């Protein structure tokens, strides 16, 4: 079978492919990937895995320890903890992912504009970025929640905004190095518009560096989301979410350990799996950079 000469193909020895192969070969990344996949599957397949309603009270079943009927026990209102763990996982993962994508989207866009156009716009955006970076992460998120009020969507937005500075700074520094490259000058000489240069040439070449921040950021974002929910600033009762479940279980920590153990373990496993993948991505990016630059 002959390949179509018009269809662009990714060479199997391209830096991107090499990086992907290196990540897939990494034992920690394999373990992390499997763990994450398992968490995603069991969380989103919750309706198929459990017949209990996550929010339906059953006072007669209150505070049952883990057993055959309720594998993770029940809470003070008699709700099945395993069911709430599975449904809670959906929300915790969603908050984490949404937070990081909001931050990445805005941060990368601002970093591209700031680094590429330079001048007063760059000075202003860099100053604004420095100001945002002066707030410890959780404090910035708290200030945003103070403005918008508690709630799941506001928590996602608050986490997203607190991630903007890191993405903006990294993108900007990458753009500053790339915009002087010969191929960018060539694209400009050929009449490519600024937006085309940014999207087709600069962004793809910055991706490798951003990928590390993006991967590790998902873990931090899940942690931040769970922390806001733990503080009671996210999901409202009776919504199941790991951080909120931990908060609710704190009152019973002395006689019902399972109410705090399982939701916390869920957060830990999710973040651990992502950090393991993130470490492998970081090693692979460093590896391909070294190979590319011939160091």
């Amino acid at each position, binding site marked *: 079978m002959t390949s179509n000469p018009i269809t662009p193909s990714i060479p199997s020895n391209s830096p991107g492919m090499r990086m992907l192969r290196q990540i897939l070969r990494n034992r*920690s990344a394999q373990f992390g990937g499997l763990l994450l996949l398992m968490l995603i599957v069991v969380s989103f397949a919750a309706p198929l895995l459990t017949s209990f309603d996550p929010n339906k009270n059953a006072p007669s079943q209150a505070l049952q320890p883990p057993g055959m009927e309720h594998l993770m026990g029940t809470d003070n209102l008699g709700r099945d903890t395993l069911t709430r763990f599975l449904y809670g996982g959906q929300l915790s993962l969603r908050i984490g992912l949404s937070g990081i994508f909001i931050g990445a989207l805005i941060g990368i866009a601002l970093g591209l504009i700031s680094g590429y156009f330079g001048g007063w716009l760059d000075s202003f955006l860099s*100053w*604004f970025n*420095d*100001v945002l970076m*002066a*707030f*410890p*992460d*959780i*404090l910035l998120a*708290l*200030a945003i*929640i*103070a*403005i*918008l*009020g*508690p709630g799941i969507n506001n928590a996602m937005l608050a986490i997203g905004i607190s991630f903007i500075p890191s993405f903006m700074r990294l993108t900007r520094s990458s753009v500053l190095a790339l915009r002087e490259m010969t191929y960018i000058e060539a694209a400009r000489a050929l009449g490519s518009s600024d937006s085309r240069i940014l999207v087709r040439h600069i962004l793809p070449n910055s991706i490798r560096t951003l990928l590390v921040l993006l991967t590790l950021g998902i*873990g931090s974002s899940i*942690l931040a989301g*769970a*922390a806001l929910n*733990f*503080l*009671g*600033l996210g999901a409202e009762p009776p919504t199941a979410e790991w*951080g909120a479940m*931990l908060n609710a279980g*704190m009152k019973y*920590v*002395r006689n019902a*350990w399972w109410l*705090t*153990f399982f*939701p*916390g*373990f869920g*957060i*830990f496993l999710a*973040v*651990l799996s992502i*950090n*393991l993948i993130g*470490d492998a991505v970081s090693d692979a990016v460093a590896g391909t950079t070294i190979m590319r630059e011939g160091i």
Partner: protein
Amino acid sequence: MFNYLIRRLFTSILVLFGISVLVFSVIHLVPGDVTTAILGRQNVNAEKVAALREQLGLNDPILVQYGRYISNALRGDLGASIRTKQPVSEAIAEQLPGTFTLAISALIVALSFGAILGLLAALRHGSWVDTLVMGLSVSGLSIPTFWMGLLLILFFSVRLKLFPSISNGSSFADLFLPALTLGVPEAAVVARMVRASMLDVLNKEYITTARAKGLPKYMVILKHALRNALIPVVTFLGLQMAYLLGGATIVETMFARQGIGRLAVQSIFSRDYPMVQGVVLVTAAIYVLINTLTDITYGFLNPKIRLQ
């Protein structure tokens, strides 16, 4: 050095100005009318709204409001709490020592555990000890602070009855669990840094020379390698301290400790905007101050930084 100092101070003043604008804007960015948000829809009547607007100074033009806010803030007046009527700066001054004590204790935990583990991993590079330390480190980075705090309470407080689960004092027993909760994730970061830094230093020529001179192994490690390996870690301490001030929010809430983090969370719940503004302003200003001092110290120690 003088030029570097002036440049760094000027940048910090610009950032502080930005922080003050953002913090001032908090009250103006609340969707809808801020007085309704504070008083609640049921309690709204024209007189109360007018009194609150007067208290918050919302009747003046925005630039006048900002001018008054910043000139008062520079004199240490951050307004009064809507709920308790207590001056905000007084409330923060009461809570700040608790947060600092907790952050410094956590820093000690992070440094001692982190340095020992990082050193062990570097000295046994590639062995099971290294794998174990790196495994512990990635787990430490992944563990939610609040979950670890609860596990520590379950073990040390509920099971062994050694330390109190709710504590407000500054004795060893009172600080043990909160400091461990806040310090362990930081220890994971320090361990990684010490390991990387030690591995780098152990390959330097002066270490080979020290070994060739016949110095005992412990002397080479402690006197020559560790001292140099800790330099980047020490310069990193400022940033860690600033981070711990933010991280204290969760630990303070969890262990019901007095501190500005807990004060911030309580103020958000009670919609006490002047208090929220005050806490955010003070914490961010401390953060900037610590970063500036760290940069200046680093610039003092490393001439290359000054010249950049």
